[in-house]
């Protein structure tokens, strides 16, 4: 059988576009990540979503769809100040921390999510950095193995994302202009001054207090109960437990004032 150019051209077209069409009917033609991470295939956690497969294109919200970790926790851990943490793309972390000189990005999020949920994660040969608040959350809310603790201690860095640094360095920006070196999308709330940052308000969550440096013990003493989910608003907790928000707020503010830089 001999072929000439025209039939060959037709074959090439049919093969490529027919193949794509056919694969779409089976649902295989995915040109974007489905935002559903692959699952562990073996061991104790087989069938559980694997944090190692979190992609830079995921938002904090996508992560919370597959893993039991809220966007707020992720935002606190990685010091992302935004009203909509669920829409913050993981890949923007890198530019946020570019100035810090440490690579804090998708791998850091993978490590954080894995340790937060007690899932296995291979760090062999890797230097994965975490910002201090992420390490604080892990140490306070999860049971880490001694190796994990050591790893975290080794690679925790006290750095601030670009936008926070900018805000502190140039008060003019608190007038309402967006910080220059912020992430490309979902830039942290413009106009958040450092004063506001350390003010206990209606929207303050427990995670904020931890991030600001108030110890969990102190918080628990003030609220008279074990600390709930760090993503919970202090006000919601206080109201639900029949406490007076103003009183609790004043006590907490006093503690915040003690530790704030």
């Amino acid at each position, binding site marked *: *059988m*001999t*072929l*000439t*150019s*025209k039939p*060959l*051209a037709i*074959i*090439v*077209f049919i*093969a*490529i576009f027919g*193949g*794509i069409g056919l*694969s779409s009917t089976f649902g*295989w*033609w*995915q*040109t*974007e*990540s489905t935002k559903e991470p*692959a*699952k562990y*295939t073996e061991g104790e956690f087989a069938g559980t979503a*694997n944090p*190692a*497969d979190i*992609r*830079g294109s995921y938002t904090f919200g996508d992560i919370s769809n597959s893993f039991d970790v809220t966007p707020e926790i992720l935002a606190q851990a990685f010091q992302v100040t935004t009203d909509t943490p669920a829409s913050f793309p993981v890949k923007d972390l890198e530019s946020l921390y570019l100035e810090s000189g440490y690579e804090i990005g998708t791998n850091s999020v993978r490590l954080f999510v894995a340790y937060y949920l007690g899932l296995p994660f291979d760090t062999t040969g890797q230097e994965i950095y975490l910002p201090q608040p992420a390490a604080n959350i892990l140490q306070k809310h999860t049971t880490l193995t001694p190796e994990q603790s050591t790893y975290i201690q080794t690679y925790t860095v006290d750095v601030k994302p670009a936008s926070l640094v900018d805000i502190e360095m140039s008060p003019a920006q608190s007038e309402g202009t967006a910080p220059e070196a912020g992430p490309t999308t979902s830039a942290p709330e413009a106009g958040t001054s450092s004063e506001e940052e350390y003010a206990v308000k209606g929207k303050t969550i427990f995670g904020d207090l931890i991030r600001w440096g108030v110890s969990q013990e102190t918080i628990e003493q003030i609220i008279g109960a074990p600390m709930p989910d760090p993503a919970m608003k202090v006000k919601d907790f206080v109201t639900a437990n029949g406490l007076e928000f103003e009183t609790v707020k004043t006590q907490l503010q006093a503690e915040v004032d003690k530790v704030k830089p």
Partner: protein
Amino acid sequence: MITLFGKRIRLFRPRSIWIRRIVQWFFFLLITLIAVNHTLVENGVGIPFLASASLHAVCPFGGVETLYTFLASGLLVRKIHDSSLVLAGIVLPLAFLFGPVFCGWVCPLGTVQEWVGKLGKKFFKRRYNHFVPTKLDNILRYARYGILIWVLYVTATSGTLVFEAYDPYFALFNFWSTEVAPTALLILGVTLVLSVFVERPWCKYACPYGAVLGITNIFRVFSIKRAESTCKADGACSIMCPMNIEVDTVKTVRDHQCISCLECTSEAICPVARTVVFTAGGVK
């Protein structure tokens, strides 16, 4: 068509496979539009009804790069999507049947090198594509296998798309974005400059995907065959071959560099009808 000394000779024959040029243009424009639209969508202004996939999603080589990781863990290398595996699954059987038609007809990087090569043909006439000494050229042509092995190794061990930083194809369709590594731009630049002297230099000496597909030349079902009984031995087919394959010295082209462009056939340059043909059968 006239018969001269018992041989059928075409008086007016096309000098090239024009339909291949159309197919090449088509895929070049398609990939350009997809790449531009991808950037537009990222900036919130995409062209409606047009795919906006990332370049990695529409590159079959991604499917090869991720194969080890996929088989070992069920995961894809970061930035690679299922569509790359699908494309690789389409292009490979095509190559088993027809050889690297992807290279000769579809790959926009191959196309762009050919376009730049037209300049070289204008400047250097017959000297074009004959600058590299044969001995050196023969050795260099195996370099792409080394590059292939390196790419597969670093991708498998790192789980990331290391080759992206060196890939001229990615650079060609993303040169406007900050995602492109300077090394990739540099390699693209060098490739384009070399294309003025050598036809498809990247394909010949460096392309790891060309290396994968090239292997099918050894056993492909349809191949270029030359009927010795009617051949005038004028060497036109060899002169025309972009990959410098000496078609006029063999009965069946099994060279690992053939790209199934059909430019050597009787449909294009060979002046004798049905003498250089693309066939699954035999010729006399």
